[in-house]
């Protein structure tokens, strides 16, 4: 990797609030300064977005100060700055254009650079998540303070800046600190304070990461606000908050659970099922305790029943419509042998579905849906598969392809006995 070195700041003013100062902060010096890839042009549009906030947060646009408490996404132009207040709930989550995520704690002022992944922490606390990319990223995330610059390509760091100095805690991977032409690598698990007198290096105490992550993230505050709205039966507002929370924190359990409840209340069955499925994955224990898993089974069954009835009722229309591309229906295998092996059919079907599902791009239709459909159109009464009827089922499901099969289990002992007799 190309080594990077910081430049001398053209202007550094901690107390600066106007965006013009933020712009100056990111105007790097030429030779000897921060070297960057030549193809890294200044940003034209947004440097990122404010994805989620809790409490009062102020955005400083060029010549404008825009206080907002909205939880909607807001584009952050290059040269802008975000400030949280001293209020206990004032937090913000910023997602930069290359996917890096920054959480702002309270009393924090963060400027956004004019180039990719450059930020200026003038005061306060942030946690930065530098994300890897499939094709290697060509520039690190730069977090500038008045005391130096922290570069982070992949990893998670806590950075606090104030008048007395800077504190950095690297939780994952490593960060490189630049100051006065010197560099220092800070390893994962290390915390360092760069003060005016001496640098203090220490190990990060246990649980500190979790404490800081929770403290600085807006997640818990937004979740709390959503739950309160939900309890006050303001479902529309709760829905909006939880949707925004889920957009930022896809695996937030409370958002999935409450959105499921809200969708259910509105009669939006598929959406409710989707949310609760997610909830059951995120927090299976609580899902079982709250009865969500049990309720989910009933809901899925209900939805499939509705869909199948709808499909049969609209068979003529469906038969004219095009099948879903790359969809495949695996018909339940039919037992042609001893009745005691009937249960084996489900297992065999599940195995085939599981294998087929691994093929990228193939959509496998749900086994239960197929079974319901077969029940509905009375195809399985004979216990034997009629190809025509199965094709009809596939058409109803709008499947492009169908897998059918039957099986028979023979007892070896019986075969041996038969062989002996022969």
């Amino acid at each position: 990797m190309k080594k990077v070195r910081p430049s001398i700041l053209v202007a550094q003013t901690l107390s600066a609030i106007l965006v013009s100062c933020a712009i100056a902060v990111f105007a790097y010096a030429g030779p000897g300064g921060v070297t960057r890839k030549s193809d890294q042009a200044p940003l034209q549009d947004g440097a990122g977005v404010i994805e989620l906030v809790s409490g009062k947060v102020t955005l400083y646009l060029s010549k404008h100060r825009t206080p907002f408490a909205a939880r909607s996404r807001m584009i952050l132009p290059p040269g802008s700055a975000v400030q949280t207040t001293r209020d206990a709930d004032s937090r913000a989550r910023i997602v930069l254009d290359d996917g890096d995520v920054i959480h702002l704690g309270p009393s924090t002022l963060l400027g956004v650079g004019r180039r990719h992944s450059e930020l200026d922490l003038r005061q306060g606390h942030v946690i930065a998540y530098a994300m890897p990319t499939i094709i290697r990223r060509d520039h690190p995330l730069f977090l500038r303070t008045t005391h130096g610059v922290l570069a982070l390509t992949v990893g998670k760091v806590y950075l606090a800046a104030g008048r007395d100095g800077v504190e950095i805690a690297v939780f994952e991977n490593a960060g490189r600190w630049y100051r006065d032409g010197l560099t220092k690598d800070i390893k994962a698990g290390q915390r360092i304070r760069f003060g005016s007198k001496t640098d203090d290096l220490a190990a990060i105490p246990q649980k500190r990461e979790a404490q800081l992550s929770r403290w600085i993230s807006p997640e818990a505050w937004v979740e709390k606000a959503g739950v309160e709205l939900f309890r006050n039966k303001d479902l529309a507002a709760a829905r909006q908050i939880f949707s925004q929370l889920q957009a930022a924190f896809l695996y937030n359990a409370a958002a999935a659970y409450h959105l499921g409840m809200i969708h259910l209340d509105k009669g939006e069955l598929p959406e409710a099922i989707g949310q609760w499925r997610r909830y059951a994955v995120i927090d299976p224990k609580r899902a079982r305790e709250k009865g969500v898993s049990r309720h989910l089974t009933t809901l899925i069954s209900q939805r499939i029943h509705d869909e199948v009835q709808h499909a049969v009722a609209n068979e003529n229309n469906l038969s004219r419509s095009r099948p879903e591309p790359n969809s495949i229906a695996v018909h339940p295998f039919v037992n042609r042998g001893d009745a005691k092996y009937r249960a084996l059919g489900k297992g065999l079907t599940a195995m085939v579905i599981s294998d087929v599902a691994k093929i990228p791009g193939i959509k496998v239709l749900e086994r239960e849906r197929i079974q319901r459909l077969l029940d509905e159109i009375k195809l399985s009464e004979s216990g034997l598969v009629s190809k025509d009827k199965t094709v009809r089922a596939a058409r109803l499901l709008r499947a492009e392809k169908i897998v059918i099969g039957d099986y028979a289990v023979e007892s070896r002992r019986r075969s041996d006995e038969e062989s002996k007799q022969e």
Partner: protein
Amino acid sequence: MRRSSVCVNSILSFLALVNFGWVAAEDLGGPEPSPTGLETGDLRKLSPREVAELNAKLRQAMALYYDQSYRLALPLFQEIAQQAGTIDIFYWLARTAAKVGQPDLAIEKFRSILQRDPTRTSVRLELALAYLQKGDRVAATAELKKALETQPPESVRRQIEQLAQYIERADKRWVATLRASLGPQFDDNINVTPTDSIINLGDGRVLRTERLEGWFIDFDAFADLFYDFGKKGAFAWRGDVFFLHHEYPDSADREFNYTQTDARSGLEHATANFRVRLPAGFIDRRFSNEDLSHAFYLAPRGEYYLGRDLNVTLGYRYEDEEFVDDVNDDQSNVTHTGTFGPNYRFQAWGMDHFVSFLGAYAVRDAEAERFSYSDWSIGPSYAGRWKSGTEASVYLRYLDRDYDAPALGFEPLGDRDEQRYTAVLSLTQTFYRNYFVSASFSYIRNDSNVPLFDYDKLLAGVNFGVNFNF
């Protein structure tokens, strides 16, 4: 046995703390670019839209990883790896698999990375850890040897050697410790003289005492032998011998020479949350260069872990002490002691801290009532350990003891009772691995309704010692 699993766990937690920061420090830009044409080719097949989708998924997976939601991150990494099996993705997938306790998957992916690029020492070290997690110490050791062959930087080499040592220790069934120290101690009240030097015994009788102070040589020796029965069943056997001798060089003080030999042995058993020790022991005490007493004891003790760093101790001790000389036979006794309290361990300011707060209740039934008592005691203790080999400890205790009868000659004062305050401070520095020097200070203040037992005593000294682990 438990010790093995404890040892492996401690290795893992130690390395989790270390977290291979140096790995990333070596290449701040994250894992190196894909070295194989095949992989690059695979990526080239992806359309910009597919790359964007995979990046979005990777961010989700990484966000979960960073927030330690490894269980949720793993399927996402697996999904991404199916489409883009880059070294970076395999690396994160393997680390996540190790975190969720799937060492086989971690091993598979780490090995895939090393097949493409065998020079990655950091990955090889993580592979060794994954083997260790699986319980395959032979494979782990082999990977560490390979890692050393790559001639890594000094700091990395030290970590590898440290890990190898841990594994070696974890493999050992027999572990022995020998510790001995010798040094001068100052005793400001050798004969435990009361605070008041003239004590009125009544009927015109007066007891005059003279406080003796001086130096003695303190010699301590401790030997411990531990046998691990193996992981299955989590049982072990431990045998200890502790020897203590105070030699007063001044001929006038030699009658205060004291020697104690305490030998004990017993089974130990440990599960994930519970640890119990069942030692039985024998104590031989000598005073004034003569046999004083012999005691037999049982001291079962259990520790229940409420978390990784917090446990609660519950102990019981039965001791039957027989005084050798008939003159002292009145003091022969049976003592029951119960101990209870929490112990907490934490890390801060670059050092390990251990804090305990134990309470105890004891009942002694002696041949003579005036030596029988019940008491309770309570107090905190602290130990801190720096990485530099410096250890500090503080022990504070308050004890309240009520005897069953008055002290001999002080009957009018009623049953004897005492309140004792104890403070012990010590500072130890280890050097050259097997040697240490220790400075200690202890102070006892004993308040009693019987003037004869109202005293204080101060001990201070420096010991030099050796410590060997086999």
